[in-house]
């Protein structure tokens, strides 16, 4: 990863417009995500954070606008180019979205089956490695998703998202519903994996601690567009009522104090 971070943009959104009937969620939205960074997307309920994520990965077709991921224009790409692109990103859905009829190991093997011709034993071993890298014990591999706790399901979802060593990982509320210990472990896991694998992470979150602990940059969704992007310090100086309330509320201050305490 020798490229200059500022110039190497892996996700480029221009003029995105999403609407459901009369309800316009995004209007003329622009956003850039650079290689190797962890971007946290925040916004009030109903500002379309998840819709934005679904738009980038092609589950939601925008009414207008241009989406470029890893240099490919998604709106114009043919099926082969889109398929190649899907191999280069991983998505972790909110509750893992594991296939309930498969064990955790088989879930992680699903993307590996499509990608390369591997011997079954190699595929199993690689899946075991990803499961272990996500912080799950060996015995979790043989279990079915319904036998796992919520936090373990999220980890298994992350293992599946990482199966193909993607360039970009999309995480939808990775720490929602986890206890504080589990949530901060998950933050550390994302940070570690992002550092050692050179991942670009696009993370939708509500969790102020996560923003402090693992995000390089924060994008605030409000007024139907990306209102402002920048580091945590820059967010604290933004003079917009919602952004101010969000980053200066009692919870934000507590999270900031904790993060400063850990650094100091």
């Amino acid at each position: 990863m020798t490229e200059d971070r500022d110039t190497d943009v892996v996700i480029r959104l221009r003029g995105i417009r999403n609407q459901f009937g009369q309800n316009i969620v995004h209007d003329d939205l622009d956003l850039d995500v650079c290689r190797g960074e962890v971007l946290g997307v925040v916004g009030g309920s109903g500002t379309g954070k998840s819709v934005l994520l679904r738009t980038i990965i092609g589950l939601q077709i925008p009414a207008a606008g241009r989406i470029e991921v890893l240099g490919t224009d998604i709106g114009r790409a043919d099926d082969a180019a889109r398929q190649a692109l899907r191999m280069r990103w991983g998505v972790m859905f909110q509750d893992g979205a594991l296939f309930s009829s498969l064990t955790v190991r088989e879930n992680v093997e699903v993307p590996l089956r499509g990608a390369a011709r591997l011997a079954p034993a190699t595929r199993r071993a690689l899946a075991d490695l990803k499961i272990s890298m996500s912080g799950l014990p060996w015995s979790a591999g043989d279990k079915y998703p319904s036998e796992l706790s919520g936090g373990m399901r999220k980890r298994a979802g992350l293992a599946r998202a990482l199966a193909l060593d993607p360039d970009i990982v999309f995480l939808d509320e990775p720490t929602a519903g986890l206890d504080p210990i589990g949530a901060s472990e998950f933050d550390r896991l994302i940070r570690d994996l992002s550092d050692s694998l050179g991942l670009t992470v696009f993370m939708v979150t509500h969790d102020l601690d996560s923003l402090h602990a693992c995000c390089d940059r924060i994008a605030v969704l409000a007024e139907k567009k990306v209102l402002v992007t920048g580091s945590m310090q820059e967010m604290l100086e933004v003079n917009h009522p919602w952004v101010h309330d969000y980053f200066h509320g009692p919870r934000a201050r507590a999270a900031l104090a904790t993060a400063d305490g850990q650094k100091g």
Partner: protein
Amino acid sequence: MAREPAHEQPEIALSPEGRDSRVTLGGALTLAGLARLHAALDALPADRPARLDLSRISRMDTAGAWAICALRERLAAAGQDLTLEGTTPAQENLLATVRDAWPVPDTTPPPRQGIADRLEALGRRVAAGGQLLLELAGYLGLFLLRLGGSVLRPRRFHLTALVHHCEDVGLRAVPIVALMAFLIGVVLAFQGAVQLRQFGAEVFVVDLIAISILRELGILLTAIIVAGRTASSFTAAIGSMKMREEVDAMRTLGIDPALALIVPRVLALLLMLPILGLIANAAGLLGGAIMSWAELGVSPALFRTRLIANTDVSHVFVGMIKAPVFALIIGIIGCHAGMKVRGNAESLGMMTSRAVVAAIFAVIVADAVFSIFFAEIGI
């Protein structure tokens, strides 16, 4: 940084054998070329140390790091070392991450499948079956207890729920039940006509239709349709409430789930199934009469006369007395399965289909018991 995953392959060069294996790797050590890389590294002999030169590789992902770590593990098991040369800090970081996360199998005892285990499994299933019967009896008792309680304290009874379920279970089932019974009457008349005509005894088709529909088929087929329709909807409705913890919320608010959920449903079924049975009887006789007229020339007037003269009213009672029993079976099995749903959608689906199968099976078993009983007492 643009790459074409399908085309990138590792370049593997083996140096002539010396005291240790020397391998120079180049190109991309990624998932796309993992099969080749793993095969080449796997072929290195484990009886000597190995040196890998990584200075010429362009890219490495966790799959490549896995192959190198797998070689290291294999050599370490044979007491040999693996030396890596020319690694960049980023590659070392990746290799360290993979090494730290190297999965270690738990030592789990292999599952035994001896005769004792099979016997134990069989015993457990028998015990579970007995347990299920006990629980169903418990739910029946609970229903009767709460019903008696609401007779004593009518204010606590959920009348609106009862009316709603009566509409759902009874009124909305009328078209399907009537159509089914009408067609059964048609089929009986047609089949009976073909057989009875051989003996010139066409007119006995009236007795055939009347007795079989009034005594058995009308109520039995109604109960089977209702079991499929209503037992599943009871299980799904109560089960989804159980899944979303609504049932637990009721308990904490001091509302008795048995009184609020089970009593109105089972009582509605108890009131509606006899009515549906009567409708099925009427529709079946109508279908039989129309078919007899069209196929055998038995006029409606003759049909009516023979029906009244030759068919004892006891057949109707023998049929109808089964209705409340079937209703209790279907209602209790449906509600019990609903309360057994746990916190996930798979268990809801499983319990719903199980409830339908169990309800239909139990209805047929009960019908067989009734047949034996009536034969013994000679009705």
